[in-house]
């Protein structure tokens, strides 16, 4: 997601805008990415504005980067799991063994 116009903050370093907190990606990966890695993303999203308001621009940028990174990792792991699942089904089908997929 691009954040080309972050809003001016009520506080923080003069003349700077807060880095994106990537909160929406954190919520989406928490809800939809199988592994609860997205929760870590929420932690970093929460750190962004707090550090920025305290004048710690570098820290805020680092938290912003990590929030994004954890959301991406969560999404990648989710996609990999789905691909492995599809591969297992194809292998099971081609080898002729009728394995039950119930409760999978």
């Amino acid at each position, binding site marked *: 997601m*691009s954040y*080309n116009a972050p809003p001016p903050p009520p506080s923080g370093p003069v003349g700077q805008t807060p880095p*994106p907190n990537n909160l929406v990606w954190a919520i989406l990966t928490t809800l*939809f990415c199988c*592994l609860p890695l997205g929760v870590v993303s929420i932690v970093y999203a*929460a750190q*962004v504005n707090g550090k920025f308001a305290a004048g710690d621009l570098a820290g805020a940028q680092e938290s912003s980067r990590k929030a994004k990174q954890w959301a991406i990792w969560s999404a990648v792991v989710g996609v990999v799991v789905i691909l492995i*699942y599809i591969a297992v089904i194809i292998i099971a089908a081609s080898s002729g063994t009728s394995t039950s997929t119930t409760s*999978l």
Partner: protein
Amino acid sequence: MTQRPAPAGEIRRRGALSFAAVTVAGLAATAVVATVSPEESGHYPTCPFLAVTGLYCPGCGSLRTVHALAQGDVATAWDRNPLAVLLLPLVLVAWAAWGLRLLGRRAWHPSRVPARWIWALLVVVLAYWVARNVPGWTWLSPS
């Protein structure tokens, strides 16, 4: 930030492309979940967290929630994952506000959410995670 600043037109074009890509991907994913029912086993993989631990995570039941919402069945959606029902409107508002900003309007931005609200969200998510797994407390669990 080590990226060199791009011209305004380039930034706008990139933003519009990202918005279009996210919109198409979101609609496609919703269409798949609406059509291929997650209520039937075998259609989608089990969450690895559930498969390994036997516990529900905060996202458990979210595909069934999206499926039910796509059918207009809010009651079933709520039964499967109430947190998802509460958070999805926020995602839609953020998406709409993103589109409005690309059109040059002033609109709300998720980075404007105060830090203490996000910490509160974290507490809610963690409490929800535990509460859905309390035996006998089925109203938060996806079943």
